[in-house]
């Protein structure tokens, strides 16, 4: 009888022991495999956005240049920064961080979890005007990129609660998936009230964080391999001339652009047009006339990112892409409004010491600057490369002077 029961529950016991050994031993979670990190750098995989292992491991070396952004990073073409870096053996490889729907809050969370590795480094941040809708980031987008691991990192490392921490806690409490968790709600309400977590609270979170850390390390790698974009990137290298030459590039961009946007009058890449617009284009005519990107919580969320950059002493190149003018003429979206947006965000940046701003919103009418409606295209990326090379050569250290005013409701609505 005893033997029978031993054989029945022995495996359960062994399983518990193995799991405990794997998850509870406090070893470092870094990845040593260079190839895996290289795959991750252009994978835009969820383990890059929601985990910490890859970003930590990659940024520990100086080979990678972090580029924060959103869906445009996914749209590879000949002049995409990753393709250019490989083709011309640049001294850096872009480490792309973002996904469709990653906005300021997500980027804050990622940066905060990697602040040691990002400290004193150069990086690129692409600000999309369409993030700045009146209600800020949508629940779905937030939830899709929400990372418990990163949140726990923030909660366990916050010593003294600042206005920024309070703002962040309050902001998080507005999302459904946070609201649904009684535990997170309690913790965040405490921070929102200005109270840092107690030692005991932190210790219990640290244990859970360790579990999440191990999970990220063990399972992030495989999912990232599935998301590899290296083949795609290398295939685009064939479009480029052997020597980097801007005039030559522009000619090629015109040629590729013309060929790839042939099935519509709006300067939109054929595949995007077929997939997203053909059929219901008529319903969109004039429909975006009253859209506004100049007011809303995203301005304060973005301030949170700026605060994090200042804290870790990053040197940042900001890029503001335009929105395709042929498209906005059709939908009625106001280019003047986009100009106002660019002015407002540039003011927020410059007044606090963030001087490297490449604002392309005046290039909206340039053919093949955009790949479709809102995503940078062939010529757009060529321009980005110019700004980037200039930025990388420039060695003057920025000095930041943050102003909490940019967190206020008044600024959000001004």
């Amino acid at each position: 009888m005893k033997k029978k029961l031993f054989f029945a529950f022995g495996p359960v016991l062994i399983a518990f022991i193995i799991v405990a050994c794997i998850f509870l031993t406090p070893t470092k979670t870094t990845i040593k495999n260079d190839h895996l990190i290289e795959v991750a750098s252009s994978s835009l995989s969820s383990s890059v956005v929601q985990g910490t292992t890859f970003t930590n491991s990659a940024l520990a070396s100086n080979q990678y240049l972090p580029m924060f952004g959103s869906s445009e990073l996914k749209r590879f073409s000949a002049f995409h920064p990753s393709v250019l870096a490989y083709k011309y053996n640049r001294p850096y490889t872009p480490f792309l961080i973002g996904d469709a729907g990653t906005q300021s809050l997500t980027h804050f969370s990622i940066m905060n979890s990697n602040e040691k590795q990002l400290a004193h480094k150069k990086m690129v941040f692409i600000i999309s005007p369409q993030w700045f809708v009146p209600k800020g980031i949508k629940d779905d987008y937030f939830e899709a990129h929400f990372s418990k691991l990163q949140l726990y990192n923030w909660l366990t490392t916050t010593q003294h609660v600042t206005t920024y921490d309070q703002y962040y806690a309050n902001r998080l409490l507005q999302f459904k998936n946070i609201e649904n968790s009684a535990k997170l709600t309690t913790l965040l309400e405490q921070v929102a009230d200005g109270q840092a977590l107690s030692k005991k609270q932190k210790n219990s979170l640290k244990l859970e964080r360790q579990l999440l850390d191990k999970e990220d390390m063990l399972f992030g790698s495989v999912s990232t391999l599935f998301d590899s974009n290296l083949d795609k990137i290398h295939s685009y290298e064939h479009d480029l001339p052997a020597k980097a030459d801007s005039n030559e590039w522009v000619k090629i961009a015109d040629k590729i652009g013309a060929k790839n946007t042939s099935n519509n009058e709006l300067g939109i890449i054929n595949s995007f047009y077929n997939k997203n617009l053909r059929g219901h284009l008529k319903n969109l005519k004039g429909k975006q006339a009253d859209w506004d990107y100049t007011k809303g919580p995203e301005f304060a969320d973005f301030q949170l990112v700026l605060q994090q950059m200042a804290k870790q002493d990053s040197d940042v190149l900001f890029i503001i892409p335009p929105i395709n003018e042929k498209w906005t003429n059709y939908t009625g979206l106001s280019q003047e409004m986009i100009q106002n947006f660019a002015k407002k965000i540039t003011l927020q940046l410059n007044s606090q010491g963030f001087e490297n701003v490449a604002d392309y919103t005046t290039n909206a009418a340039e053919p093949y600057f955009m790949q479709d409606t809102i995503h940078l295209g062939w010529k757009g990326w060529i321009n980005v490369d110019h700004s980037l090379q200039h930025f990388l050569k420039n060695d003057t250290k920025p000095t930041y002077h943050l102003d909490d005013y940019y967190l206020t409701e008044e600024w959000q609505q001004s």
Partner: protein
Amino acid sequence: MIDQIPSLIPYANPIYFAYVLIALIPLIAYMLWKEKRLPWYQSIVTLVFLYISFGGSSWKQGVALILYVVWQTVLVALYQKYRQKHNQSGVFYASIILAILPLFLTKLFPVFDFHISFIGFLGISYLTFKSVQVIIEFRDGVLKTYKIWDYIRFLLFFPTISSGPIDRFRRFQKELHNAPLRSDYADLLKLGVHRIFIGFLYKFIIGYYLGTLALPHLEKAALDGGLLSWQMLLYMYGYSLFLFFDFAGYSLFAVGVSNLMGYKTPMNFNKPFASWNIKEFWNRWHISLSTWFRDYVYMRLMFLLVKKKLFKSRVVASNIGYFGLFLLMGFWHGFTWFYILYGVFHATAICVNDWWLRLKKKHKNWPSNKWTHALAVVVTFHVVCASFLIFSGILDKLFFN
């Protein structure tokens, strides 16, 4: 205190098993020691796990579940009372319709983009099978007495509540009142643990790699490639295997946990992809569902058609029966064109299969060896995969989005 109780979908997260195991330790120990069941403790465990699944943020589902159980117990009680003295078909059909009504409404509302959150809950389809079955057995006269608590415990048996397997009431009731002998129970425990571990392999490892990692890429490639492309073929294989490993893994959990509690809930899968024809496939795939449809829909429909002599030919009657069965199964999955097409596809396949078997019977000299058997398995596998491709809904995305 109640805030601290986690809310978890059954079997969706490995930690759920740790909770189950801890909760079951007293029950297992007592049954091994006394060879008796511990009904009150089992009820408490059931309530706790129902709360975990239907409390917290999904409390509306919990309310729906309670309303549903009240509805079904009252309905069955009334029908049983009536059936003691009368046996009119009209009343019987009305009871069946009332039993199906909540499910029907939850399936219908999304079609009109209309949502009432107090009707639907996770597992409603499976509970409906249980209640309809009991009404039919009262009608048949196989069931006579109605023990309301037995019935409620049958409905709410928590290991199988979210997605089956669909147990039979009389089988369950017998076990409910008889605990297994110590040595049988020890064997059952070993089997249960084994099944749960195989389930881990199926659902959390193979199912995860296929479903979470590979399928999104395969789907994207298939949508770009179009209907007749090798990418679509790859997606078809990927989706079919995922469907099997995910669902079979889930079923193993449900059966395994039942075993730990001393119940022999029937198995749901038996190497379905080794089937050599469609009929065999349905004997091996989602077995508790197909036998339910066979016993309570197909056989009865056939009986009706033959008795009333609506069709002279048995073959025609049987084919009509198949279409009735599989159309119903299609609608049960959801009121969407591709589920219904999935039903029609399988009905057609099984009619063709019958025709082929009749043809083969006439030609006794046709070859039949291990090679023809292998060919049959391959053909069956592809027919099944094609049906799952319809079932996956990818065609809806391809044609209408």
